[in-house]
């Protein structure tokens, strides 16, 4: 294909602003999918994505429009997947930025737009949902123009739902987005921007060819890792897999590697031809590091091997997922898992429970800490229970947060951010009504319930996005919990020194309410080192018996007893104390009153 006839682009948008619907219309309008084949949002393959209205894995679909080959590279829409968006964007020359005509610019719109600008992409701004009664296309167009530069009149107005204006979007892609540059005659180079795993065909690499071309049955080498394989097949998606003779410079498609081990081909690597190798790889991506950690334990300890297998399988399609075995005195054998953010954690948890039918206990999430140990080096700690008690310094991750709210909620948001140790950076009026607040916040203050709090204090009007800004020193202490004098590793938390007392107090109060009364008094304590900072007692129960039990009551009584037994089985044994699984999540909702 002539490079000048190729356009590679993504659609980027805040969640629910209509990215997938627009992609569907593009496939329809270009006759890539017939009306009969058309099911809503064909690009979202996974059941879960469909339900949540989000897209996890990027995919590339080739369409033709007025003699041009257009490659639509799908990107996920959520903050947690910024790194996936960013690597998909590296395969493009342009991006269609979609904004809901009724909602206007939102936090993810800003984040995605900045990513696109950082990647030197040509932005085609689009206001979607102009058919909605509450739509205000002119206001939204003004906001976009303000954000990405340019004139409000250049912003296209469409309804992806009805199809109105979609042809003009395709025309604009052809007219405004530059053709890829690259040398078809140079040694072959292709960027692996995503991959997937098929149990029969092995690793499937999604690539953007920059120079030269790739053909089936040719020996290929991944330059960074040095992995060698023979390309079993090359091709593109339209929208299903179509094998092709070659993939040429500027084109986007897939390479079936036949590799059975996903770790042998990393996203961000450069493929080249073994016969005529390139000398320099393409600039790759930086490795993404998980920042949010949590322990995953099977409710039934017999499920441990099943959980391990499930995590292995998930990891095949989710390079960002990190896990290592963890043993908790309280919860038994499980895994400490690292995630990009809270949504990522939630999705992994749901997939484990739904696709693998596992019943899991997920501990409260925490962030990664950098710790300078006494007479030692900096180490990274992923689990509060592993935080050394003796240390010289601790650093915690900070994020740059953008929060967009109607102006009347600025006060409550600032108050929340102050409570969360936020540092105000700046404030911008996006329109007379809407304000962007930029803050730096410790990630640890976000992982528990920040988003819920933000939503409740702004009646759901706030939109929020963040990216990790790096590690900063923090005055942090480790708070341990003891139940009947037994330390419970799964309940340890790292908190700012000033918050240690109220948080410890709130946690033991919470635990007192969650732990059922036992045959004896149970002390619940929070401690920093050996210093107890809060204590509550779960009083022994004195009576637990149904008064009446005659001939007509026996079955009911037996069923109650079975229920009681089943309840006991779900308890975790901490020393002699039976602790319900819910208690281990107590640390999640400590804010009911304690910090308000």
């Amino acid at each position, binding site marked *: 294909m002539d490079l000048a006839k190729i356009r590679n682009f993504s659609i980027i948008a805040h969640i629910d602003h209509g990215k997938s619907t627009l992609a569907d219309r593009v496939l329809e309008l270009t006759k890539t999918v017939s009306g009969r084949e058309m099911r809503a949002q064909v690009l979202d393959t996974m059941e879960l994505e469909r339900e949540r209205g989000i897209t996890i894995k990027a995919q590339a679909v080739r369409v033709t429009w007025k003699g041009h080959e257009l490659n639509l590279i799908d990107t996920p829409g959520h903050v947690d997947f910024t790194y996936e968006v960013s690597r998909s964007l590296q395969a493009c020359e342009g991006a269609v930025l979609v904004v809901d005509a009724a909602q206007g610019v939102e936090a993810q719109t800003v984040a995605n737009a900045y990513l696109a600008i950082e990647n030197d992409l040509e932005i085609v701004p689009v206001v979607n949902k102009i058919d909605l009664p509450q739509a205000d296309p002119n206001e939204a167009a003004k906001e976009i123009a303000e954000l990405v530069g340019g004139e409000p009149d250049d912003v296209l107005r469409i309804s992806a739902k009805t199809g109105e204006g979609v042809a003009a979007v395709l025309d604009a892609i052809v007219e405004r987005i530059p053709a890829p540059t690259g040398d078809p005659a140079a040694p072959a180079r292709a960027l692996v921007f995503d991959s997937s795993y098929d149990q029969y065909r092995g690793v499937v690499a999604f690539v953007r060819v920059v120079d030269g071309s790739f053909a089936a049955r040719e020996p290929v080498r991944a330059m960074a890792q040095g992995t060698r394989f023979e390309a079993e097949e090359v091709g593109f998606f339209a929208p299903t897999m179509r094998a092709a003779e070659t993939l040429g410079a500027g084109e986007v498609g897939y390479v079936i590697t036949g590799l059975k081990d996903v770790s042998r081909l990393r996203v961000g690597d450069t493929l080249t031809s073994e016969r005529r190798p390139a000398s320099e790889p393409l600039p790759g991506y930086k490795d993404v590091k998980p920042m949010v950690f949590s322990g995953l334990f099977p409710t039934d300890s017999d499920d441990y091997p099943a959980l391990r297998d499930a995590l292995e399988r998930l990891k095949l399609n989710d390079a960002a997922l990190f896990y290592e075995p963890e043993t908790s005195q309280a919860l038994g054998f499980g895994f400490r898992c690292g995630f990009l953010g809270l949504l990522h954690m939630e999705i992994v948890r749901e997939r484990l429970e739904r696709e693998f039918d596992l019943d899991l206990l997920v501990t409260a999430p925490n962030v990664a800490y950098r710790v300078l140990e006494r007479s030692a080096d900096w180490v990274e700690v992923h689990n509060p229970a592993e935080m050394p008690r003796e240390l010289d310094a601790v650093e915690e991750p900070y994020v740059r947060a953008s929060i967009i709210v109607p102006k009347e909620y600025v006060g409550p948001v600032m108050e929340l951010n102050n409570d969360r140790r936020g540092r105000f950076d700046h404030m911008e009026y996006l329109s007379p009504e809407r304000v962007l607040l930029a803050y730096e916040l410790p990630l640890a203050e976000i992982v528990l319930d920040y988003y819920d709090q933000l939503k409740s204090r702004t009646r759901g009007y706030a939109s929020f996005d963040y990216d990790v800004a790096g590690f900063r020193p923090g005055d942090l202490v480790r708070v341990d919990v003891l139940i009947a004098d037994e330390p419970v590793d799964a309940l340890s938390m790292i908190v700012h020194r000033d918050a240690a007392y109220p948080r410890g107090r709130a946690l033991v109060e919470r635990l007192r309410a969650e732990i059922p009364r036992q*045959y004896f008094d149970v002390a619940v304590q929070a401690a920093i080192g050996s210093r107890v900072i809060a204590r509550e007692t779960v009083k022994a129960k004195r*009576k*637990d*018996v149904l008064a009446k039990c005659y001939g*007509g009551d026996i079955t009911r009584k037996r069923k109650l007893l079975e229920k009681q037994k089943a309840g*006991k089985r779900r308890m975790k044994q901490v020393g002699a104390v039976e602790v319900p699984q819910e208690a281990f999540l107590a640390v999640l909702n400590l804010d009911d009153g304690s910090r308000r």
Partner: protein
Amino acid sequence: MTGPGSVRHLYVHLPFCASRCGYCDFVTVVGRGGQHAAYVRALLAELELERQTLAPELETVFLGGGTPTFTEAGQLERLLAALPPAVEVTVEANPETVTPGLAALLRRNGVDRVSLGAQTFRPELLRVLDRVAGPDDVRLAFYYLRDAGFDNISLDLIYGIPGQEPADLDADIKEALALRPEHLSCYELEAKAGTRFAHAHGDELRRQAEAMESYFERVVETLVGAGYRWYETANFARMDAGDRDLRSRHNLAYWRGRDYLGLGVGAVSTVDGRRWRTTPRLALYLAALGAGRRPPRELELLPEAVRRAERVMLGLRLDEPLPLAGFAGEVDAAALGRLERLGLARTVPLADRDAGRRAAALALTRKGRLLGDAVTADLLA
């Protein structure tokens, strides 16, 4: 195992009441004076259909309700006269229904034990319970029964009534003891889901649950101190009656896992590994028996393991040690060890006459009995 023709315990349900008490979740029918005769006719028809299940000689008959003594005198007498004789025949009675005439009627028809629903002697608490009788009705009923010659009277008391102070409870027990009943049943008020009472007082009961937690202990201590045997979780029998065993023989049969036949609407029977509950609907019951058919029932099969678990569950309510032989699969030895260390259960040696050697039996301590449900849930493997 019990076979057909060997059931020695008969329960007869008489659902009629003058009014329904808010806390009650039994099968009861208010009013319907015109149906008493039809109901008794149906009961006797059902008895004929089931007679082959019964042993030639019964140990116990128990008439429960409802308010059995609210049934029209003529019909009640007809029923009592037609029921097979037994060693112990108990009738439940509400104080306001007991007259010298009724007492004499019961007496001449073979009834030798009356269970009187006193509940409380506090007028304001009786009102909370929707009880019709006043405290004096209770005492009067008791004396009428005594005068008619009843030397085995049980009083029912309820504690944990919304608004009941410890002093109220003490006074109730004192007044009950003053009557020197042979037997006492003391129940904690339970607001069963769906009852009018749970709706009206549920929140209040939950609020006061902690304050009233000690009431059960208080009841046990006071009655044991007054010379009663705490022979079952909620039941107490006087011990100063010489050779007479004043425990409820009928109810002991339930707790010892014996088979029993229940007649009447909503009545439950357990015979030979099958448990069934007759329809609670009066119209269906009357129609079926009027046509000579068995009324509809809900059947539950009880496999051996379930029956053994029930035996443990029921047996642990009693103050008699439960022989462990035969329950090896049901009792969790590790849990038993833990409970022994906590002072909630103990194993006691038991002379095994058949084997001529000593075998172990399981008993709960007083503290263990107060926590009986939790302890049983722990013990059952």
